[in-house]
């Protein structure tokens, strides 16, 4: 037996090997003439009512109560099932009437009188009045709730004052001058008082509308109502029969009967979209890696690619500059401006563009990208990328290779080493891998710690990190609406949060400039002030920006009438106007 077996085994092995070899030889090297790029022609089909679409979402909302859920899935659910007083048309960045059909501004810019739309009903058929608006803001500012949304609805840390002189009128009073005005309330969904008032009075508002609450207890003013939430699987929303909005031709919106949102990881949602199993992704932008596959699917007419312009919310590498962390050896490096500038100067941004983004990105140097047409200022650091200049900066920071091991040391012999926390399984992790290699060549050792989003936040909240590479999505274009980032007292002042008084002179300068521009109503003057802020930021580099992607959005061929916006969710922000082929 042993004598006979080898021969036949060998024959099989050879046949299999040849088969595999020919398969891969045929398939592997993708070599061919460049075809003219054709991004799938957008058929100008008029939207019609009816039908359903499937979307994907990367994370699951932990609750159905937007007021206690600041997460991205929470925002999506709110956009689908709730409505706000006013809305920013994200394609044009203009404020437009929504539940309030019109408003007037007082001459001193401190009060807005809103006329509410008449005959609007909640999804359970109850009429909507100014009492619901009053109730919503009462819940928003209730100290027992500590709504994370409230932080976005403060002017200099003070709440708005809401009055309701009659059922159809609401007066919004600002505590002080604030240029963006009513944009402040754009993110506040109006909740049904009749459904939630008891929970608020009894102090149980935080647990109301939890993930386990029967969906029938939830009512809203949005285009859809939640009909199913299968944990780990999907959310299903169906047409809100009482939705108030109609399109130009008088057709009652939303167009869709139903929208199913399945939970899928970034990798699997891309595959699903290519395979036609879903129609759109909540984060509709595709990864550069996936471009080739999407391009092929687009050439076959299965998906449509839409140019989404440049990314609005770039990722950033921020250093831990808090006093608590100051004793750490890494922090002693970070405290020196020269070191921070050196890191920026070492990094070849174009290499990140080329490898990680496969060319579909542009180098940037500050937090505001060219996508923000109103507020972007092209300020650059003194050194964009120059290894020689970087070495001078490192020497100025007291770093030199004292023992010839290729790694830099400070005067006391401590190696220049720090760790970067980043989100596992994301393009961020890959950017950090490039940073690690480039910094290694310059003699700085970097440890990468890839973490789950939640664990990353926890570390950040505790201040237990050296540096973090991450990005926060924000729907705000106007810098005055991001005080959390710019002001030293802010929650999202990543490198040193919630300072009682500005820790550095330059942070004080930025605080002043930001306050000044928020109270200025002349746009040109505001822009001048904000450019100065960006200039200081790029000079001080508490956080380093490297690239912003050139965004390509993908939708299935069944999606009709998409209104792509630069912010995420690029398509679901106006879900009521999405339609499908019948």
């Amino acid at each position, binding site marked *: 037996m*042993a004598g006979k*077996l*080898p021969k036949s085994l060998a024959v099989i092995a050879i046949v299999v090997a040849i088969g595999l070899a020919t398969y*891969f030889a045929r*398939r*592997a*090297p*993708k*070599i*061919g003439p*460049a075809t003219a790029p054709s991004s799938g022609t957008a058929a100008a089909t008029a939207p019609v009512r009816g039908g359903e679409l499937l979307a994907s979402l990367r994370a699951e909302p932990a609750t159905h109560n937007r007021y206690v859920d600041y997460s991205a899935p929470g925002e999506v659910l709110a956009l689908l099932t709730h409505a706000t007083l006013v809305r920013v048309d994200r394609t044009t960045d203009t404020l437009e009437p929504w539940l309030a059909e019109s408003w007037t501004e007082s001459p001193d810019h401190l009060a807005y009188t809103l006329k509410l739309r008449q005959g609007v009903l909640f999804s359970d058929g109850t009429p909507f009045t100014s009492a619901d608006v009053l109730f919503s803001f009462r819940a928003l500012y209730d100290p027992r709730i500590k709504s994370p949304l409230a932080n976005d609805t403060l002017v200099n840390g003070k709440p708005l004052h809401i009055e309701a002189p009659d059922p159809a009128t609401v007066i919004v009073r600002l505590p002080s001058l604030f240029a963006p005005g009513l944009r402040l309330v754009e993110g506040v969904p109006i909740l049904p008082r009749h459904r939630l008032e008891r929970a608020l009075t009894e102090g149980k508002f935080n647990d109301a509308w939890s993930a386990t609450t029967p969906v029938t207890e939830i009512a809203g003013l949005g285009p859809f109502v939640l009909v199913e939430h299968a944990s780990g699987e999907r959310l299903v929303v169906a047409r809100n029969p009482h939705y108030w909005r109609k399109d130009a031709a008088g057709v009652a919106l939303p167009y869709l009967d139903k929208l199913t949102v399945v939970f899928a990881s*970034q*990798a699997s949602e*891309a*595959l699903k979209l290519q395979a036609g199993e879903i129609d759109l992704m909540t984060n509709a932008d595709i*990864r*550069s*890696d*996936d*471009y*080739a*596959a999407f*391009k092929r699917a687009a050439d076959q007419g299965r998906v449509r690619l839409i140019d989404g312009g440049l990314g609005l919310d770039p990722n950033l590498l921020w250093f831990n500059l808090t006093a608590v962390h100051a004793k750490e050896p890494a922090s002693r490096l970070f405290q020196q401006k020269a070191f921070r500038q050196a890191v920026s100067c070492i990094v070849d941004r174009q*290499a990140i563009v*080329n*490898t*990680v983004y*496969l*060319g*579909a990105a542009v180098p940037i140097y500050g937090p505001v990208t060219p996508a923000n047409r109103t507020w972007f200022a092209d300020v650059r650091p003194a050194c964009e990328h120059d290894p020689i200049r970087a070495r001078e900066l490192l020497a100025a920071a007291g770093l030199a290779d004292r023992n010839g091991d290729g790694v830099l040391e400070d005067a006391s012999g401590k190696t220049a080493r720090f*760790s970067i*926390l980043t989100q*596992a*399984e994301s393009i961020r*992790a*890959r950017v*950090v*891998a*490039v940073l*690690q*290699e480039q910094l*290694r060549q310059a003699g700085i050792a970097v*440890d*990468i*710690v*890839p*973490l789950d989003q939640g664990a990353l936040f926890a*570390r950040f909240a505790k201040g237990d990190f050296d540096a973090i590479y991450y990005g926060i999505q924000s729907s705000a274009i106007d810098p005055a609406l991001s005080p959390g980032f710019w002001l030293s007292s802010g929650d999202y002042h990543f490198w040193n949060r919630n300072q009682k008084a500005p820790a550095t002179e330059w942070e004080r300068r930025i605080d002043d400039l930001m306050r000044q521009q928020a109270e200025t109503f002349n746009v040109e003057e505001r822009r001048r002030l904000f450019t100065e802020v960006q200039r200081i930021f790029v000079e001080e580099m508490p956080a380093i920006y490297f690239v912003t992607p050139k965004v390509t959005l993908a939708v299935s061929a069944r999606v009709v009438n998409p209104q792509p916006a630069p912010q995420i969710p690029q398509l679901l922000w106006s879900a009521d106007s999405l339609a499908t082929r019948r």
Partner: protein
Amino acid sequence: MISWTARAGLVGLSIVVIVTAAAHFIAPHDPARQFPDLAFAPPMLPRVLDNAGHLHRPFIYPIRLVDRLEHRFVEDRSARVTLEWLTSGRLVTTPEGSSPWLLLGADALGRDVFARMLRGAQMSLGVSVVAAALALTLGALLGALAGFVGGKWDAALMRLADFVVVLPIIYVVIVLRATMPLVLSSSQVFWTMTVVLGVAGWPFPARGVRAVIALERKKEYAEAAQAMGAGWLRILLRHLLPAAQGFLAVQATLLLPMFILAEATLSYVGFGFAEPTPSWGVMLHEAAEAGVLSEAPWLLAPAAGIVMSVLCLQLVSEGSTQVSEREGVTH
């Protein structure tokens, strides 16, 4: 004597071991080096015949980027890059400044998959081998103790073994890892994994060794030795343990695949080695995560590494089982 399959397995194993040990020498490039223009570059086959059919020393045609976003490359047939042998401390490489030789293509960061796979083998196989050695030593000692002493000790040890066997190892390591500091150097990860796997693996050899020892202890020569007044440790080490040698060898071929897989799984789920240290699990994770698996199947090369190592071990164990069966050895 040794079956054909076992022989094939042994040859395969030797190749794997040699290549792994000499990874630094064999890899044509530094595994950490990133070639920015070659992200997702396809594998480049070495050639001896050029376009016109002329014979040359082994060479490659360099590849040139056509469309970065769609990762399309063309082979530049106009220029040959001759492979250089035994220069700059490497078996074979291409001159600095010319096109690199990417035998198994490049990954998402333009790194040489072949070089990374070899370096990864050192990590993955290293952990498995050391852990297996630890498990065998622990298992042999505890098993021998149980078999030799018998009674309460025996019962207690075997209950413990039963318990450890059914503990989900992967899970234990994950929880353990979660309790450790975030930043661990590669060597710390290496030793942690080794110790945990070793400790989790001891019951498998221990059970068998105990059975063998319990059986041998009753045999005449052991009793004779005892009668002659030999110390128990001496009997155990000199007379009894050698009887379990064959069994331990077979156990090694069973434990190793288990540990190779455990390392791969752990690193795959992000509780093993971290960038830039490649291990097979880390590389597979990157491959699956890239979402370009269908575009760049060569990223699955470490899977082939796993299969090959395990296959060789299987062949050896299968072969030796057959032999021992034929020879009537029980274990």
